[in-house]
């Protein structure tokens, strides 16, 4: 208990102590730090729950506790509250300790207090949910090793299915910058994506609170569902289950399905990508073989004998039905998804994202209320918000041609992510392929990327002036071919002068003029001592390159 308290104290102490520095923790240290908090909290939750509920796997200890004159629900609450109290007590003690000794009194303000509170609530909810899952896993088995294995599967189960769907479905929007930001439903994603902005002292409190509120609602749902599961598992678990690997005889099939289905789909997908000829046939064979082997393996573990594993074909057939139903459904959804092209009168405007230029989409900056740069903008979000392209005919022609020819058969295929804004108010994201050897295609593409509103949608620097109070610490010309830096000066004035020239040069940007070539150099505008910067491409036919 002391050891657990010490670990909690150490990481919470770090959480507090980072505020003692004049500038707080640098932003690039926050992500590894929050990851460390998540891992530590997860390990502590599994450790504490295992320690308190491991008695379920010992006949002697089960007999001892279950023979006492208390009802099952009271016994559950006693153990459960004990687990929670160990952690919460340690957390509160360490926060008090850090406040007393880690932070100068003068630095304590409402902002810091709010962040401590938000981080504490998120972390307690995360801890409690991981604990619930561990308790549930322990109620499913009578063996501590199997219990921990089930726990590992359950903790990462949503992440596993997200991976299965990503790999099984070759959606046209897969890897699209417009759709990779899917809603966080995995427990770990929810926590990590919320704790990161919450503990960043350079992010405004409003931004942190917004991330916090969304995550708290999701974590509360996770907590409620998992609490219900572990409570029900505990109350229904037979005491004699401490003798067997799987506590509920009726749950054998469910556990098998939970493991066999995603594993077979993943194996099928790897096989598909490992073959060129007959790959669809090989994928199906691979899924069948995997389902049979994994089912038999699990049955052998459950019954501790090979004979039942070879006899019980019923569960294998059920697994195969579920696997092929899942596979078929994903195929149908995938085909319908990929075939979508909006009608002309359905489309209001659109935005495109060229993944080959994606590096340069990533340097748009977030400012807080007083013009201070504190983060990079999500590239897809920036494009969605700022790029409004009106030439519907060009994109619909390209999308229709993309449907007609498989991109494997194109001479020079270029992927293009398209974000359609519909007149109905909705939106759709898809990936299309453009054969750049086709003159007509190039002409259509130039109609899309040539006008200024495309460039305004990609580069913040194209239509934004450098903020008056921005601290431009350096403006550099980076010659990529010679790998040389030329320092052009510093301050907003220098930056504005260079940007004027760059904007004039970029008027020529399309696939028949400067964009046909690779980027030759970059203009780097550094803010706040180089923590953040604008990086802008320079091509060979631009005057900036010729003059450098």
């Amino acid at each position: 208990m002391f050891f657990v308290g010490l670990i909690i104290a150490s990481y919470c102490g770090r959480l507090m102590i980072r505020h003692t520095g004049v500038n707080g923790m640098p932003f690039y240290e926050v992500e590894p730090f929050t990851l460390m908090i998540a891992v530590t909290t997860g390990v502590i939750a599994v450790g504490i729950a295992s320690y308190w509920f491991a008695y379920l796997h010992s006949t002697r200890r089960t007999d001892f506790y279950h023979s006492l004159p208390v009802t099952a629900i009271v016994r559950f609450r006693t153990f459960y509250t004990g687990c929670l109290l160990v952690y919460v007590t340690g957390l509160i003690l360490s926060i008090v300790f850090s406040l007393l000794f880690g932070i100068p009194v003068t630095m304590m303000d409402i902002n810091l207090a709010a962040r401590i509170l938000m981080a504490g609530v998120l972390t307690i909810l995360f801890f409690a949910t991981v604990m619930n899952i561990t308790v549930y896993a322990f109620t499913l088995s009578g063996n501590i090793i199997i219990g921990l294995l089930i726990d590992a599967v359950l903790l990462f189960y949503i992440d596993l299915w997200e991976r299965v769907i990503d790999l099984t479905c070759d959606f046209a929007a897969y890897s699209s910058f417009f759709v990779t930001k899917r809603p966080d439903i995995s427990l770990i994603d929810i926590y990590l994506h919320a704790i990161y902005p919450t503990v960043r002292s350079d992010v405004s409190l409003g931004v942190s609170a917004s991330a916090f509120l969304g995550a708290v609602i999701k974590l509360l749902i996770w907590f409620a569902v998992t609490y219900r599961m572990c409570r029900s598992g505990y109350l229904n678990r037979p005491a004699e289950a401490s003798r067997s690997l799987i506590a509920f005889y009726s749950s054998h099939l469910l556990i098998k399905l939970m493991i066999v289905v995603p594993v077979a789909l993943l194996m099928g997908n790897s096989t598909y990508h490992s073959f060129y000829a007959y790959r669809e046939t090989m994928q199906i064979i691979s899924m069948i073989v995997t389902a049979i082997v994994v089912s038999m393996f699990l049955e052998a573990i459950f019954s501790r004998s090979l004979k039942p594993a070879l006899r019980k074909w019923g569960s294998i057939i059920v697994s195969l039905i579920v696997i092929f139903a899942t596979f078929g459904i994903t195929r149908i959804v995938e085909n319908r998804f990929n075939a979508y092209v909006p009608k002309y009168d359905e489309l209001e405007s659109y935005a495109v994202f060229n993944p080959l230029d994606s590096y340069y989409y990533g340097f748009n900056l977030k400012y807080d209320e007083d013009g201070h740069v504190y983060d990079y903008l999500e590239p897809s979000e920036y494009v969605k918000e700022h790029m409004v392209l009106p030439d519907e005919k060009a994109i619909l022609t390209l999308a229709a041609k993309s449907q007609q020819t498989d991109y494997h058969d194109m001479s020079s295929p270029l992927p293009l992510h398209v974000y359609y804004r519909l007149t109905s108010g909705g939106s759709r994201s898809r990936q299309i392929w453009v054969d750049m050897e086709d003159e007509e295609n190039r002409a259509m593409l130039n109609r899309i990327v040539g006008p200024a509103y495309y460039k305004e949608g990609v580069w913040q620097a194209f239509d934004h002036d450098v903020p008056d109070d921005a601290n431009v610490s350096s403006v550099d010309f980076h010659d990529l071919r010679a790998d040389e830096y030329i320092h052009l000066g510093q301050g907003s004035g220098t930056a504005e002068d260079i940007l004027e020239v760059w904007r004039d040069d970029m008027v020529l940007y399309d696939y028949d003029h400067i964009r046909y070539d690779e980027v030759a150099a970059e203009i780097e505008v550094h803010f706040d001592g180089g923590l953040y910067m604008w990086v802008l491409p320079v091509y060979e036919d631009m005057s900036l390159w010729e003059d450098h």
Partner: protein
Amino acid sequence: MIELSNITKHFDDKCALNRVSASFKEGAVSVITGTSGSGKSTLIRIIGGIIRPDSGVVIVDDMPIYDNVTTQKRLFVLPEKPYCPSYESASELAHFYGSMYDGFSEDVLKQLSDRYDLPLKGRMRGLHPDARALMMLAMGISASTAYLVCDDMFTAMDRDVRTMACEMISEARRDMGTTFVVAVSDPSLLGDLPDYTYELETVRG
């Protein structure tokens, strides 16, 4: 009185008990015998309310035992190898039982420990297994419950210790009116202690 009515219990596909019925008289020592694997321990755990039968019911003083605190407070269960928390001494364990059983008497425990030379200080885990079993029996008697259900902790005991255990049980029945239900593979090990003997047959198939 403890009454068993058509108790059936399966472990996965295997039938451990098949429609077992019996009633154990108050103030008597009832012994359940049977060969290894006949289901004695399972029956004791069902009587003690630790595990739930697939069908049938255990009634203690007109109330079912399973997950019923009122009934469980009237009954103390001693498994074959009782668990003792490793960090606790006998007096700490007595304190714990005192919080669980209203009638727990530390005086009775002290008398028994003095008489049979059982140390109340020092960790329970440090005791010899026989001494620990005897100490747990003393705890059960001190709980002053109406019933004490005891799995076969006697077969593995040293002969002298077993004699002491029988003595303890006999005196508790006489002085406190405790009803004992004891499982043992060979009833002759208990000498003339048993008032009634019930033989449990192994379920075939």
